[in-house]
């Protein structure tokens, strides 16, 4: 028998267990093993004192489902636990999570530095909508790490980007950009929808706020819209005078200073207390429950998404109808080394490829695949395809398309978890049609 002393190890729950259990205690919910759907707008107060205590943030609890809801709360805690964050706030969509993040951070007259390779809707928010609120943005190409530094101004309040850009798969050097942000005393906000916390935990690489469209891989089933912002808890809001709405007494809550009072959860507390109160992009309890069902199998699904994606990269790279393939797992991807560092559990299931024959071939391909679904979503368990220049990014002019790294021959592929042979067979049908676009279009 060994007399070697047993090393002390923390026994906190690990990823797969947290995916199933975090944020929920059955014994406090009538023993219900499944998370109940609290389909209610509002919650009884015990008495006037209890009501006042809830409104004054003297105690935890629920008032009105625009601000918080017990089912949504389980989802928030679960995602916070998976990300390694201190707190989270779920919203009605990924876009509302981004908007709420920006509005919690910024005021009119502020400025943001933003990666240029983003989902088309996000580009429009930063380029066209936020300036209407007096918030201006400078776009920088995701690989231009030094460009992020140069773009910072006196009134810059943060850096925002997608870890792997949509749709071109360019990877931001998150650790270096986080250092640039922190040297300037501002936070780094990362949209990690493509990765989920199974593939990457941005807080471990310097991010301060992580945003997800939960509609995508986190839910997986493509049935429900949802978004979330997660706080890392490390950023010191009191280090400078850039964030007075976080550090100074807030009139809307009896002179509360969020940073002083809530420290590592201050940003989420402010986003909820102010943002959900005033803008109200709340998530329905039914949709929160639907997303929770997806998260229960997150790691199992992500493994299959990634293995199928790697197979598709090999298949497409050797295909006579394909001009180019972009995916972080491809050996010739310019960011392959960075991808290995940031995405050790898999490189995700978003592939961009160029089809020979340009736009017409792309249209023929999209119109003829049968298994792959042509729609404006990603991260479904089913394989999805779209031609960004005529779909998700169609509201961009030619110059903006070019700056965002899009071309007319690009097909965006979100690889599902079907049998890989069935996906390849379906693509063969699409490629055959693409080689004879005129013939097919006349059928």
């Amino acid at each position: 028998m060994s007399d070697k002393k047993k090393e002390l190890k923390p026994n906190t729950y690990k990823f797969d267990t947290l995916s199933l259990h975090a944020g929920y205690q059955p014994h406090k919910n009538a023993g219900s093993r499944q998370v109940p759907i609290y389909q209610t707008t509002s919650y009884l107060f015990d008495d006037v004192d209890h009501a006042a205590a809830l409104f004054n943030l003297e105690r935890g609890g629920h008032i009105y489902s625009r601000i918080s809801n017990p089912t949504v709360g389980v989802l928030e805690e679960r995602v916070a636990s998976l990300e390694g964050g201190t707190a989270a706030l779920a919203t009605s969509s990924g876009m509302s999570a981004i908007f709420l993040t920006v509005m919690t951070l910024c005021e009119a007259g502020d400025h943001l530095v933003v990666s240029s390779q983003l989902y088309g809707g996000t580009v429009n928010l930063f380029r066209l909508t936020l300036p209407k609120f007096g918030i201006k943005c400078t776009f920088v190409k995701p690989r231009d790490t030094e460009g992020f530094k140069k773009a910072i101004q006196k009134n810059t309040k943060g850096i925002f980007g997608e870890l792997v850009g949509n749709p071109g798969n360019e990877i931001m050097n998150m650790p270096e950009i986080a250092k640039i942000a922190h040297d300037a005393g501002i936070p780094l906000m990362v949209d990690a929808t493509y990765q989920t916390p199974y593939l990457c935990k941005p807080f471990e690489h310097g991010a301060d706020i992580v945003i997800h469209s939960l509609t995508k891989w986190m839910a997986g089933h493509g049935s429900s819209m949802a978004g979330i912002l997660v706080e890392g808890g490390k950023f010191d809001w009191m280090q400078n005078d850039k964030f007075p709405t976080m550090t100074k007494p807030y009139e809307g809550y009896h002179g509360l200073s969020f940073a002083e009072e809530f420290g590592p959860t201050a940003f989420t507390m402010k986003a909820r207390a102010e943002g959900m109160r005033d803008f109200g992009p709340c998530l329905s309890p039914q949709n929160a429950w639907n997303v929770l069902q997806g998260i229960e199998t997150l790691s199992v699904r992500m493994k299959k998404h990634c293995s199928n994606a790697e197979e598709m990269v090999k298949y497409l790279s050797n295909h006579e109808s394909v001009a180019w393939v972009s995916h972080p797992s491809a050996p010739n991807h310019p960011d392959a080394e960075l991808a290995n560092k940031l995405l050790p559990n898999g490189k995700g299931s978003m592939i961009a490829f160029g089809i020979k024959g340009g736009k017409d071939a792309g249209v023929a391909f999209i119109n003829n695949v049968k298994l792959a679904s042509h729609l404006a979503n990603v991260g479904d368990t089913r394989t999805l395809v779209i031609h960004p220049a005529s779909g998700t990014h169609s509201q961009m002019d030619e110059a903006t398309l070019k700056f965002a790294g899009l071309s007319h021959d690009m097909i965006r592929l979100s690889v599902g978890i079907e049998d890989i042979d069935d996906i390849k067979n379906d693509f063969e049908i699409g490629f055959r049609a693409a080689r004879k676009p005129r013939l097919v279009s006349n059928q």
Partner: protein
Amino acid sequence: MKFKVNGHEAFASTGGRPFDKKKPLIIFVHGSGLTHMTWVLQTRYFAFHGYNSLAVDLPGHGLSGGKSLKSIEEMADWVSDVIDAVGHKEASLVGHSQGCLVTVECTSRYPNKIKTLSLMGGAGAIPMNPELLSLAENNDPKAVDLMMDWAHGPAGHFGGHPVPGLYHINTGTMLAKSRTIENTLGVDFRACDNYKNGFEAAKKIKCPTLSILATDDKMCPVKEGKKLANLIDGSQVDIIDNCGHMMLLEEADRVLTVLKKFITTNYPPLSS
């Protein structure tokens, strides 16, 4: 608010209300390596109900200046100095974990100043696991991870924070890692390990005392808490089921309800 204690800048949360010298004073003292933020679900209630609520950051912790104090006795004197520094003659004390050692020692040293004593997850002594102590003194973040594991009960490990969206264990981890571990947790753990006067100090306490204990507390088990409580004349004990050492967060409402009744009865607020 910021104020000076013995020439060093100190910070205490006032629970979101301005400090008012006319109101009775309650001082909340945090546990090893932590900060005033652990008390957010208790302090704000008292601040809005006729008290000056001061959740202090011990020297070298959170937003307070100076270096961490090396003994429980020095911390006890510092708490007494806080009462003087804010212009009060007396106070009610509330402590958690190491904060219990501090407040027990302070109450025994300054019996005329302390009007009530509330202990959460307290014991007469908190000897440290030598490996945990060594990790903390060597600035190893594993010390924080181990503390967070042991400090939360089985239910607390799943989450279920009373404030929607907050996740217990990661929040506690960030608080404990907010400053250099060896200078906060390492110094605190050593101070706890060295402190031997808890049981003797308890025998001297005459003010109303409350002990809140939890059935799943691995760091200060119920039997240790009861041993301390039994030495204090007339001490009340409240035991919470399905809860670990971080009861002030894991069962924040229950703790507040018990604390509210005890303090308002024995140390009434300034009526409005």
